[in-house]
C-alpha cells in the first residue's frame, strides 16, 4: 500500500534517513523498531508530509505522494497520531471528533452566514457519528469534558477516535506506548486490533515495548542508521544478530552484582 523507495532526509550534513526502502502491506499492522536516532520518527514525518525529503519517493496505492503536505495526505486517507497526545485542549471531546471530517460545508465562511440550514443538518449527523465513536472507545462519559482535562490515556484513545471519524486507509502511530501505563496500553492495543479487523485500517506502529509489538504487529521492521536493517515476524527479528547488537541487547550486566550485594 505504501512504498518507500530509497528515501533520504539530511539535516545539514547529518543523514537522519539514509536510503530507506520499505513496503507496507495493505491490512497489516506493521511494527517499526530501531535504536534511538535510527530515523524512525524522521521517516514518519517525511511520509506524513511534515518534512520534505532530500530525495527519494513515497507512493501510496501507486500514486506518488512525496512531499505532499499533511492536510492533503489526510484527504487521501493517510492519518497519524502523535507520540505526545495532540488533543485540542480547549474543545470538548466530542468537538475534538466533530472537527475531523474534511469538506464540511460549515467550514466555508459564506455558508456560516447564508447556509445555516445545511450546516445544522450536517452538524446533527456529525454529532451522531462522534457519539458512536466515543461509544466504540468506551469513553462516552467524557464527551462533554474539555479534552485538556481528561487523563492521558483517554487523550490517546481520543486521538485514535479521530482516525475513526473518516474512512482512513492507513494510520501511523508514533510511540503510542511511551509513558503509558501498561494496562491502558493493552486496552489501546485491543482498540487498534479491532479497527484493523472491523474496518480494515492499515497500521504502522513505532514502539520500543516488545510486548506491545508482540501483541499486535506482523511484520516488524527494524531500522538502524537511517536504513532498514531487518524485516520479518517478531520472532525472526528477535533472533537476528544485527538487531540484537544494535537494538535489543542482552539484558542487565550489573544485575548479578546487585544481587550479590544484597
Amino acid at each position: 500500500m505504501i512504498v518507500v523507495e530509497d528515501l533520504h532526509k539530511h539535516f545539514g550534513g547529518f543523514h537522519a534517513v539514509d536510503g530507506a526502502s520499505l513496503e507496507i502491506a495493505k491490512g497489516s499492522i506493521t511494527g517499526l523498531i530501531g535504536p534511538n536516532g535510527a530515523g524512525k520518527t524522521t521517516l514518519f514525518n517525511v511520509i506524513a508530509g511534515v518534512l520534505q525529503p532530500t530525495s527519494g519517493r513515497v507512493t501510496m496505492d501507486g500514486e506518488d505522494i512525496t512531499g505532499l503536505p499533511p492536510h492533503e495526505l489526510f484527504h487521501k486517507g493517510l492519518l497519524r497520531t502523535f507520540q505526545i497526545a495532540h488533543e485540542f485542549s480547549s474543545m470538548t471531546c466530542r468537538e475534538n471528533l466533530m472537527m475531523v471530517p474534511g469538506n464540511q460545508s460549515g467550514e466555508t465562511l459564506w455558508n456560516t452566514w447564508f447556509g445555516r440550514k445545511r450546516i445544522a443538518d450536517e452538524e446533527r449527523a456529525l454529532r451522531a457519528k462522534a457519539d458512536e465513536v466515543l461509544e466504540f472507545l468506551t469513553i462516552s462519559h467524557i464527551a462533554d469534558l474539555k479534552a485538556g482535562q481528561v487523563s492521558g490515556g483517554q487523550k490517546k484513545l481520543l486521538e485514535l477516535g479521530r482516525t475513526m471519524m473518516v474512512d482512513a486507509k492507513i494510520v501511523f502511530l508514533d510511540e503510542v506506548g511511551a509513558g503509558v501505563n501498561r494496562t491502558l496500553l493493552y486496552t489501546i492495543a485491543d482498540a487498534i486490533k479491532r479497527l484493523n479487523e472491523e474496518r480494515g485500517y492499515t497500521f504502522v506502529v513505532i514502539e520500543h515495548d516488545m510486548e506491545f509489538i508482540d501483541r499486535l504487529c506482523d511484520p516488524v521492521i527494524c531500522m538502524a542508521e537511517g536504513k532498514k536493517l531487518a524485516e520479518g515476524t517478531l520472532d525472526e527479528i528477535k533472533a537476528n544478530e544485527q538487531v540484537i547488537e544494535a537494538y535489543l541487547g542482552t539484558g542487565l550486566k550489573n544485575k548479578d552484582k546487585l544481587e550479590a550485594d544484597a
Partner: protein
Amino acid sequence: MSDNPYQDDHGNKDASITNLKGAGTMQPAHQKSGPTHKVDGGPFLIGDTMTGGYGKGPDILHDCTIAVDKGEIAVIVGPNGAGKSTAMKAVFGMLNVRSGTVRLDGEDITQLTPQDRVIKGMGFVPQTSNIFTSMTVEENLEMGAFIRTDDFRDTMEQVYDLFPILRDKRNQPAGELSGGQRQQVAVGRALMTKPKVLMLDEPTAGVSPIVMDELFDRIIEVARTGLPILMVEQNAKQALEIADKGYVLVQGRNAYTGTGKELLADPEVRKSFLGG
C-alpha cells in the same frame, strides 16, 4: 491549555516576538526559604503524608508518602496521571504542599526553595528536557556544580569515569548527542552536586531496550556507591526487579507499598499495573 488566563497565548508562535525555547513549567512553591528544624529518626529522605496540588488547583496528592533510605533504590510506579511526577516535584519543593512534611537527613525541609534543597544535597533529573542542549557536555556538568563553591574537578573526573563516553564528547554541544548519551549527561549533571540523594523521573522513557539496560546498569552502579536513588519508572517490571522498595501510586494515594520483589509477586499489582 491550562485554565490560567496568563497562559493563554491564542496559539501564537510568532518568532519575531516570542521565544518558546526552553521556557519553564516548574513553579517553586516558595520564593524564599522558610525555617528548617531537626527531627529524629525516619528514613534518609521522606515525603511524609503529603497533600497538595499545583497553584490554586485541586489537590493531586492525598496523604502520599514516599521514602528512600541510604543505599537503596526506591521505585515509584503507577498509571498515568497518578501523580508520580507530582510526588517527585513535591519532594523537590515545586509543589504547594498543604499538609505533610518533607524530611532529609533528619531535617524538616518542607519550607525550603528548590535551590536550597539542592544545596542540602538533593539531585533531580527530570523526565524530559533534562540537559542544556546548547551548552557543551562539560558546561552541562559545570552547571550541575553551580551551587558548589569548592573545586569540583574531582567530581567531574568521577563522572567521566562513570560515563566514559562523556569524556570523549566533553566539548560537543549536548544537543548533538543520542538519546542514551543525553540521559547519561543528565545523570552526570545531577551527580556533580555530590548529592546525598538522587531523584530520577522516568529515565528510560522512550529509550530502546539496549539503552535502557545500559542506563539501569549505570544506575545500579551509582547506587552501589552508597547514593540513595528515588525514581519513577513506567518500565515497571524491569524497575521493580532492581528496586529495594517499590511504591504504587493511584490517584495521588499510596495503593501498594513493599519491596520490589513483593510487588512483582503481588497478583493484584501485576494485573492492574504490570499488564498481567
